[in-house]
């Protein structure tokens, strides 16, 4: 049982506020990811939880107990660092067992636990080596071994995969998910990679400039972003944003930009028009745009465009299209054939549109 709770935690470095009134409860055995661009305060949050930094204000609870004054070693946490931070002068065996040795465990018990961890991670044959003799992926596993061998209440992972190459990263991501499902510990994971956040977590905390933007189930956040930042941060390729004017056309709302009228299929009698005060940002994910060749479009709401670039990803194509000076990115199945300069038509999925307030960046679609 290890529930983590942050209560109004603020951290200042001189005049810079790295974290502002951070509130979060992580349930026992929950996998929560803090995600955001660099400098958003996610690593600071983790360091505060680990006891490596003191908060300027606010309380941190682990298991219902305030741990602000508790030294790091007593918090029963284990941490995996982005740089792995293995002890270069120790063998893999000593690295993994060091935390246990410091805690005064018997040699037999240390050996047993180290070997267990090594077996789980598949690094038994590396135990006698030094960190410098290991590949990046192997070092990563040793760093994980050092964490799991302690059998802590809470695992903290600070961008553990960002030093690996793309292929290994995808593989380790799946391994991590499997590992922590099996171990069943509480995990706080920090990353700037939205794909890791989406795939690994039970819940995602999106942060920017030290402020929490939105917390929730990854798929919910993907479909219902609270603001432009969350909408743009999650998903790859990223969501299209179009500055537009909202207007009434018959009983429906339309968006207008550069003389193009974008039918939105939203009823004009809702509060949307009032809320947007005419000006808004239209957001649509690339997979919610259907691209066809002229003449194939079934819908009368299709918009004509020119294909600029086609990226063949193998499983799908990414189409960069130009709609009278506005660039829209769409994904199509790999069978779609088009060349740069070809005319095409786009149809927006009206149910997946997001309207954001241009001044506050807030999502105002639903209300």
């Amino acid at each position, binding site marked *: 049982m290890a529930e983590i709770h942050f209560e109004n935690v603020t951290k200042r470095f001189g005049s810079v506020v790295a974290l502002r009134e951070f509130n979060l409860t992580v349930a026992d055995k929950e996998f929560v990811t803090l995600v955001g661009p660099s400098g958003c305060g996610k690593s600071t949050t983790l360091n505060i939880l680990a006891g*490596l930094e003191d908060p300027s204000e606010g309380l941190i609870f682990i298991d219902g107990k305030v741990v602000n004054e508790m030294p790091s070693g*007593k918090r029963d946490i284990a941490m995996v660092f982005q740089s792995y931070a293995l*002890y270069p*002068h120790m063998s893999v065996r000593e690295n993994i067992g060091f935390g246990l040795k410091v805690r005064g465990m018997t040699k037999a018990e240390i050996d047993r636990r180290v070997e267990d961890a090594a077996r789980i991670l598949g690094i038994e044959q590396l135990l006698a080596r030094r960190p410098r003799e290991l590949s990046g992926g192997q070092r990563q596993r040793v760093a994980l071994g*050092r964490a799991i061998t302690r059998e802590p209440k809470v695992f903290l992972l600070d961008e553990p995969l960002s030093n690996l190459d793309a292929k290994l990263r995808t593989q380790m991501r799946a391994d991590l998910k499997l590992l922590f499902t099996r171990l069943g510990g509480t995990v706080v994971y920090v990353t700037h990679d939205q794909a890791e956040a989406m795939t690994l977590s039970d819940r995602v905390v999106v942060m920017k400039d030290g402020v929490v933007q939105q917390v929730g189930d990854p798929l919910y956040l993907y479909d219902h972003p609270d603001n432009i930042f969350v909408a743009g941060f999650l998903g790859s390729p990223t969501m299209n944003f179009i500055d537009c004017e909202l207007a009434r056309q018959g009983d429906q709302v339309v968006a207008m930009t550069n003389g193009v009228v974008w039918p939105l299929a939203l009823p004009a009698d809702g509060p949307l028009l009032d809320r947007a005060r005419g000006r808004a940002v239209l957001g649509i994910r690339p997979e919610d745009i259907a691209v066809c060749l002229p003449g194939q479009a079934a819908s009368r709401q299709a918009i004509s465009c020119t294909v600029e670039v086609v990226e063949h990803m193998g499983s799908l194509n990414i189409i960069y299209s130009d709609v009278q000076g506005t660039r829209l990115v769409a994904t199509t199945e790999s069978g779609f054939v088009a060349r740069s300069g070809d005319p095409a038509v786009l149809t927006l999925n009206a149910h997946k549109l997001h309207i954001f307030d241009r001044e506050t960046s807030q999502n105002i679609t639903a209300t």
Partner: protein
Amino acid sequence: MSIAQNYRLRRNVSTLQLYLLIILVLIVIAFPVYWLISTSVKPSIESLTNPPTYIPSRLVFDNYIAVLKSENVKFLVNSLIVALASTVLTSVLGAMAAYALSKNYIAFAIRRGLMLWILVTRIFPPITTAIPYYVIIKNLGLADTYAALIITYVSYGLPFVIWLMLGFFQDLPADIEKAAIVDGCSMWQRFRQVVLPLTLPGLAVTAIFAFIYSWNEFLYASILTSFTAKTLPVVISTFISDQYLRWGEMSAMGSMMIIPVMIFALATQKYLVRGLTFGAVKG
């Protein structure tokens, strides 16, 4: 001549030039050492000839016998005790002080002030403080003791060790220490089991300098000791008097004085190279 041959020739010529330059520099550096050793084994008359005798006509070891048979062995032991004790103390205390100063436990402004004052003690030429220093040591009843010299050398060596080790500690990746903190290490455990083993090359470098300094130091040794704690540099100076200048014995003793420093440097050479380039390459 083909382009490849031409290129090879040019490369060989420039390599040759490089070696010639290295040899020239080596001669300049090594000649005094050669002169010292050769003088120590020359027949005494040859050390005064003009033009100088560059190569001894025969090898004579009388000077060594003269130097070793007297009570000089005791002074050699003195020198070793003082130099080793000061080296150990300077390195240990200096490393600990530098570690404390390299961390955020003390506010930056205070740290900066402390570090500046530590350096200030090295700014004065030693001679300026020699007289008051002698009076203090005498009043403490430490004149002509090992303690007097060891205290002096430690206090003079500390600023150097602190400033040098500070760089090594600051170069240590912060994450490694954070990992040790999370692993439950106290500050002392962290220093002993993680930080120190990783900065050992740096410590070896500083230890060599500390050793060389206390081994060679003459001014304070001549002021603070008279007989019991006298060290070799002071003994060597006694070969110069108003009546005679014993070049041969002086050189013999000088040659012997080089040996411990060379052994010490060779023993730590492995660390020396790593230490001087520490932090240059990540890995």
